[in-house]
């Protein structure tokens, strides 16, 4: 039941500069499409795929879609929902499918989750499967890992990602390393998720970006969702994965609305998303900064630039394939992230790009990150801690000079 679907507009999107790669991809996608029995096609959740004039429709989209639906492509309207509802949908579908999937965290049960991601699940599945834990991150994360060693598939919810710093030992030593130190005997199919990032004046301790701390832990995978479509897909993929996955959500993105397909779909954990193909510069981003970048992209397009925006989604490992193809096309890279400057995801990505694609770069890799300061409470100061669209526009202009 293998399904990889490379998007019908795949070949058109890539220019002749990368023709070799695109042919390979095209051939691959054709072969894979013909190999599978059912048709499945939900390429873009807004369903605007078939309008040929719209440039966005021709982008390379890589989605792994599961089974069924011999229905006509892209006419299913799907349903509209908010990001936290998409997460809940994904979670519920997986809990329905596999009795070993369980959730544990603070206030996930009776309260319904502090961001309503687990609302009503306790009524449906019971108190043991949607477990309200006491405020003891270190031990309930450890408990989830111990349960995973026996074959359960727990999902640990950190009420705020910052609280999971208390569980760092469990995540690093037990979660990440047990598969290796036991010589492959134990798998830890745990999902650790929670909202992080800078919110609206939440204060320094509640505005942390832990992806920079967790990125060096060997044995874990990290993904960051940014839209309802990829939130549901990544949630399902993370639950089905045999590896421990940390799913980073963002406090400010929970109320984003989008139309997502009715059919079941799962996204690839290690793949980046092409948000907007372009020619002049590659902008790599993830999570909330995607929206700042798209806002800046509007201004840039008016000014005559053509940025290619990629939502990297997979923070560990990086999807160097998609990123590489983009760099080979545009020769300029701008990374926009919400992590701190020192030791953040952008820092690692800069190093990786410089190492692998140095010959393709026409300009140094520029990384726009948050300032190396604790997030202040004052609104204006907080605004300047993170990267703003105006800064992105300036950076692109400077790079593309």
């Amino acid at each position: 039941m293998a399904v990889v679907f490379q998007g019908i507009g795949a070949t058109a999107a890539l220019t002749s500069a990368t023709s070799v790669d695109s042919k390979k991809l095209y051939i691959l996608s054709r072969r894979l499409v013909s190999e599978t029995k059912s048709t499945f096609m939900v390429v873009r959740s807004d369903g605007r795929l078939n309008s040929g004039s719209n440039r966005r429709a021709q982008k390379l989209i890589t989605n792994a879609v599961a089974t069924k639906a011999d229905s006509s492509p892209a006419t299913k309207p799907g349903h509209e929902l908010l990001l936290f509802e998409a997460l809940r949908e994904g979670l519920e579908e997986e809990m329905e499918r596999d009795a070993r999937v369980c959730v544990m965290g603070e206030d996930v049960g009776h309260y319904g989750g502090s961001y309503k991601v687990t609302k009503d699940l306790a009524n449906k599945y019971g108190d043991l499967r949607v477990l309200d834990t006491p405020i003891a991150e270190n031990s309930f994360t450890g408990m989830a890992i111990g349960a995973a060693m026996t074959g359960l598939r727990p999902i640990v919810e950190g009420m705020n990602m910052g609280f999971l710093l208390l569980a760092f030992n469990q995540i690093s030593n037990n979660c990440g390393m047990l598969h290796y130190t036991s010589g492959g005997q134990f798998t830890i199919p745990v999902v650790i998720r929670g909202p992080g990032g800078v919110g609206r004046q939440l204060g320094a301790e509640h505005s942390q970006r832990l992806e920079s701390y967790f990125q060096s832990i060997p044995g874990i995978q990290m993904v960051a969702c940014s839209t309802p479509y990829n939130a549901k897909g990544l949630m399902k993929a993370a639950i089905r994965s045999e590896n421990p996955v940390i799913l980073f959500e963002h406090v400010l993105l929970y109320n984003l609305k989008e139309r997502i397909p009715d059919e079941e779909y799962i996204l690839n954990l290690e793949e980046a998303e092409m948000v907007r193909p372009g020619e002049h510069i590659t902008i790599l981003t993830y999570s909330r900064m995607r929206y700042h970048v798209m806002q800046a992209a509007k201004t840039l397009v008016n000014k005559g630039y053509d940025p290619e925006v990629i939502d990297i989604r997979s923070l560990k490992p990086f999807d160097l394939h998609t990123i590489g193809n983009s760099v080979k096309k545009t020769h300029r890279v701008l990374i926009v992230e919400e992590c701190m400057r020192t030791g953040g995801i952008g820092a690692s990505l800069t190093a990786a790009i410089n190492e692998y694609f140095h010959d393709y770069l026409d300009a140094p890799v520029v990384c726009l990150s948050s300032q190396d300061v604790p997030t202040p409470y004052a609104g204006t100061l907080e605004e300047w801690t993170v990267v703003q669209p105006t800064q992105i526009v300036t950076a692109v202009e400077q790079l593309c000079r």
Partner: protein
Amino acid sequence: MALTHRSTNLLKPLSAAVPFTSSLRRLFSTDDATAITVETSVPFTGHKCDPPPRTIDTTPKELMTFFRDMATMRRMEIAADSLYKAKLIRGFCHLYDGQEAVAVGMEAAITKKDCIITAYRDHCIFLGRGGTLVEAFTELMGRRDGCSRGKGGSMHFYKKESGFYGGHGIVGAQVPLGIGLAFAQKYSKEEHVAFALYGDGAANQGQLFEALNMAALWDLPAILVCENNHYGMGTAEWRAAKSPAYYKRGDYVPGLKVDGMDAFAVKQACKFAKEHALKNGPIILEMDTYRYHGHSMSDPGSTYRTRDEISGVRQERDPLERIRKLILSHDIATEKELKDIEKEIRKEVDEAIAQAKESPMPDPSELFTNVYVKGFGVQSFGADRKEVRAILP
């Protein structure tokens, strides 16, 4: 080899009697028939529970098994000591000799479906759970055929099929994992328990109390066992804990204090604890035990305690000696036979070491295996990835 010789002797008709054979018949004919009643060295002390009785029934076979298992464990640890000094074992090596009764007694009370998780002093518990000497020594020497393929080391022995969950280096971190094992058992509605072992040093960790709170809240079948050898590395228990009565530390969770040098006391306590945990939730067992070696091989073990103390415990409370005395006093075997068993074990251990030494080092490609599970089927080969494949399960 000596054992096969003996069994062929047994098959000979009685008329071909040799004085040797008659003692053998005594050894093996009283296998399961007679029940022997032993008493534990000291009565149990309970906290919020009624302690089990002091008298335990056992059989000669069990006594001999205890003797053999403990002698094997003792021999393995001493051999590991020499191997460490010969620089064949590197890094940290924490030895368990002196504490064998806990491992052996616990195994006798439970099944392989019950889980055990412990900290870094795990060689003997691994053996008790069904690990072989060869697996242990090859892992200690970092060879490919070790139980963790040479990638774990002394502190990371695991045996999934017999419910041994390791083998953990960070003090106290295994207790929440143990609670997780109990959670999974409750979730899957199995009638099994999880034993989470920790030391007197780890008893002061906060995550222990967090875990205990959760276990008590949800009635998880978890048994927390404090192997109190009275020294947390170099710090004596009275210098580290305001209340060294670790079995009482659970407050609302019942506890039992057990003489950890008496294998039968341990067995009785574990049986009691298992019944309790399946009905009422968590219970704490404090095993009063002692380690002869230092904390690890880099610790001489005599800077914070006197040699008189160590030899005193060895003389009065040694677990192996206790079983030996029981066997001799009940005429189950002669002193010579026990010595022969010990010689045999020594030979077994030496052979295992020889076999382990021949095992090759792991292949360099092993560096990258088992970091991730390729469960989801997606393969990425770095920047030059040639294929993108996603296979849904």
